[in-house]
């Protein structure tokens, strides 16, 4: 993508911004296709869309090296893509095809990819907190300078194991960052009904560095993530980042009628006032780093790319039935 006028910003900054914009659009286009696959009844099971939360995954993952680790959640497509996963293998996995990241054995909630440091999405709420902490343990022990990011939803604050591993991470000074996406709901219940006290204090109580950030502002997320990652890499221990965000769609693709737990007005407000892509796009134009046309072009490019990836996945074959018993033991 070419930029119009000469921006005053350093070129690498500009590159980063455009890359982050492109990544956010990629995630949204990917998820739009997932929803499409579901409504066309082409996808087995359900999926949890990340639309609306793109700035969190992109802002954080852009602060990581390819060799750094992440663990993800049931709402994990965005994290995987932001860490470098390719759409075609992801779609193939979502359809249970052999060409998928997990040979079709994992599906939407279990995308894993060693090549991009993705230790795996997880369908157990907070199920990957131990794994991420352990990856940081290896990094420290093997002195390979890596950092681990553990993405969790605010619902994971209900799981005791989170406090166990934060305590361990601080005791062992491990390079792990717990990124908590507070999208206000745990399935169909507002987080305030299930979360007493103060979220950040739950982390500082165990000695972690903690901060909260506007999860709809990709630059803000990236700045604070970079600081925390750098701090962890330098051996100064774990951190907790609370990102305030919102999911536009239902808890999963089948969650259509949502009025009983949240209002249409609330949804509208977030979509119109606080959309991470629209707002960032507007800002890029203001900074004359990009113009509307070039941004529109990104959109259409990625839409085509995603459509092609979907076609690849649909055409791809299922694994052979005899493969069912493979990979149980290494």
């Amino acid at each position: 993508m070419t930029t119009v006028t000469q921006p005053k910003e350093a070129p690498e900054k500009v590159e980063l911004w455009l890359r982050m914009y492109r990544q956010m659009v990629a995630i949204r286009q990917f998820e739009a296709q997932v929803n499409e696959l579901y409504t066309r009844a082409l996808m087995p099971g359900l999926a949890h869309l990340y639309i609306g939360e793109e700035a969190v995954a992109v802002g954080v993952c852009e602060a990581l090296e390819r060799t750094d680790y992440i663990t993800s959640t049931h709402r994990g497509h965005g994290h995987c893509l932001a860490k470098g996963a390719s759409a075609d293998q992801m779609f193939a996995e979502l359809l249970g095809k052999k060409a998928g990241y997990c040979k079709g054995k994992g599906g939407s909630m279990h995308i894993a990819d060693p090549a991009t440091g993705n230790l795996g999405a997880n369908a157990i709420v907070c199920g990957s907190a131990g794994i991420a902490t352990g990856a940081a343990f290896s990094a420290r022990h093997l002195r390979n300078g890596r950092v681990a990011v553990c993405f969790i939803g605010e619902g994971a604050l209900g799981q005791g194991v989170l406090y166990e591993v934060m305590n361990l991470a601080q005791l062992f000074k491990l390079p792990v960052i717990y990124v908590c996406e507070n999208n206000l709901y745990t399935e169909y219940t507002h987080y305030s009904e299930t979360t007493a006290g103060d979220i950040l204090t739950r982390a500082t109580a165990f000695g972690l560095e903690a901060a909260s950030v506007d999860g709809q502002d990709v630059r803000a997320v990236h700045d604070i993530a970079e600081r925390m990652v750098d701090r962890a890499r330098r051996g100064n221990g774990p951190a907790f980042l609370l990102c305030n965000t919102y999911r536009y769609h239902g808890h999963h693709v089948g969650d259509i009628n949502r009025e009983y737990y949240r209002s249409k007005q609330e949804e509208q407000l977030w979509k119109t006032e606080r959309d991470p892509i629209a707002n960032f796009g507007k800002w890029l134009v203001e900074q004359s780093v990009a113009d509307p046309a070039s941004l529109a072009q990104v959109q259409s490019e990625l839409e085509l790319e995603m459509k092609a990836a979907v076609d690849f996945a649909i055409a791809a074959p299922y694994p052979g039935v005899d493969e069912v018993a493979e990979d149980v033991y290494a």
Partner: protein
Amino acid sequence: MPENSVRAQDDRELTFGQAIREALAEEMRRDATVCIMGEDVAEAGTPFKVLSGLLEEFGKERVLDTPISEAGFTGLAVGAAMTGMRPVVDIMFGDFITLTMDQMVNQAAKVHYMSGGKWRVPMVMRTTMGATRRSAAQHSQSLHAWYCHVPGLKVILPSTPYDAKGLLKAAIRDENPVVFFEDKMMYKLKGPVPSSDYTVPLGVADIKRVGEDITLVATSSMVQVALGAATLLEEIGISAEVVDPRTMWPLDEKTLIESAKKTSRAIVLDEGYERYGVTAELASVIATGAFYDLDAPVKRMGAMHVPIPFSPPLEDVTVPTEQAVFEAARALCGR
């Protein structure tokens, strides 16, 4: 049997899910100490919508949404049960009982015994089981064998709407911790359910189909599979008896053994992992009890020894099917 007598009076049909809701509503009306707690049980009525309407009738004090803290609210229920309540906890997916094992096994199951019989834990844990829902390895397990192994717990696996209502009501009235496993795939299954207040006693197996040539002992959703296979078998002249233990503990060994003695052949079906699972116990009970009458080894059919895969063609071969049971039964009968 209570079944027939009651069935006679009333042939209303409900789904498996509706029968469970009715059992809870009836018991909550009868006893103010019965309350429900779990994730998204209130406004949402659970993701499976099994509890819809209970909040409206009984209010937030008795239908409580909890944080995602399976260990925490299960432990809370143990203490509440010891001190005058009859809590029913809802563990959304059976895969999550992994998080409740200490509360259920080291606490709930042992309180009565360790206290020399002084404290009681009249609580019920409702949870789910069953694969083929395309939910992958962490949302498809049937882990009931673990709880069956634990002294102090009772374990129920209902297979019909009628049994579900009667057994759940009996569980809520029981003075012990009871775990009630519901197959996610059966919630829409319809069957006759009397509107009357009846219970089905724990520890009494039910012969779902009378037959002469082979016994199919089946639990939960496998009962439907067994009945389907029995129909196929009938077409080739094999008469299969389908026996549903209904409760894994207490276990009605006598009915299982007598059926096997009568038919001299048996297959045991359960959707849990076959290895070291429920099929092992049932098969061994029959192999011992009907030793001198069996014409062939007891055949076990459970889930494959693999984590449940997501990919549909793979997932479908991990659990016993009508066709597979049909073939196994035919082979066992030497046809």
